[in-house]
């Protein structure tokens, strides 16, 4: 986990706000950069992912911004909803298929 640093640890926004979660990594052998969403008592579920040859990817209300030179990527959630309240993990993947999870960001969206 030391290869991946995720911030902030927790985040509280009002409904409609745009929470931003950041992830910094050290290993240049990562080839795939996903974000996972986890609800209490459930396993992580893939939310959105990006490959290193692309700088931004948008799927619905979720956007990943990727900065290869800075070895950072971030998740933006547009028009956040109370149902988005969950823990979010960045988890870059090595070429051997292993995911390296960050410590997680607990997001709370108030109605």
């Amino acid at each position, binding site marked *: *986990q030391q290869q991946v640093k*995720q911030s902030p640890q927790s985040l509280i926004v009002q409904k409609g706000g745009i929470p931003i979660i950041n992830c910094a990594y050290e290993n240049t052998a990562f*080839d*795939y950069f996903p974000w996972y969403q986890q609800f209490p*008592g*459930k*396993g*992580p*579920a*893939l939310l959105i992912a990006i490959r290193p040859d692309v700088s931004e990817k948008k799927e619905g209300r979720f956007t990943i911004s990727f900065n290869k030179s800075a070895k950072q990527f971030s998740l933006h959630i547009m028009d956040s909803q109370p149902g988005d309240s969950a823990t979010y*993990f960045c*988890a870059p*993947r*090595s*070429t*051997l*298929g*292993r*995911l*390296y*999870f*960050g*410590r*997680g960001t607990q997001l709370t969206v108030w109605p």
Partner: protein
Amino acid sequence: GAGVSQSPRYKVAKRGQDVALRCDPISGHVSLFWYQQALGQGPEFLTYFQNEAQLDKSGLPSDRFFAERPEGSVSTLKIQRTQQEDSAVYLCASSLGRRPNTGELFFGEGSRLTVL
């Protein structure tokens, strides 16, 4: 089944007991991973199978941890002589791809182990 199924969902063990955790991956999925998630932390890699072959076990924390997938489908994670630091949620995940770094990974809901 529709998703990755894990059992038991909850397990309480006394220190020193052996436990076995089962994972039923999505039918036809070649790759299978085990991860350990301590309270308030992100999951950490334990081991990887391609069909019945255990190709990477570098994440297993000690020789008390053992995993198998004898017929290339169901997998069992066994922990011998459990200790309190083994308390965690054990997550199983599977993907269709033959190569471990291809395809979406689907996680089960996990088995929560509490060692007293």
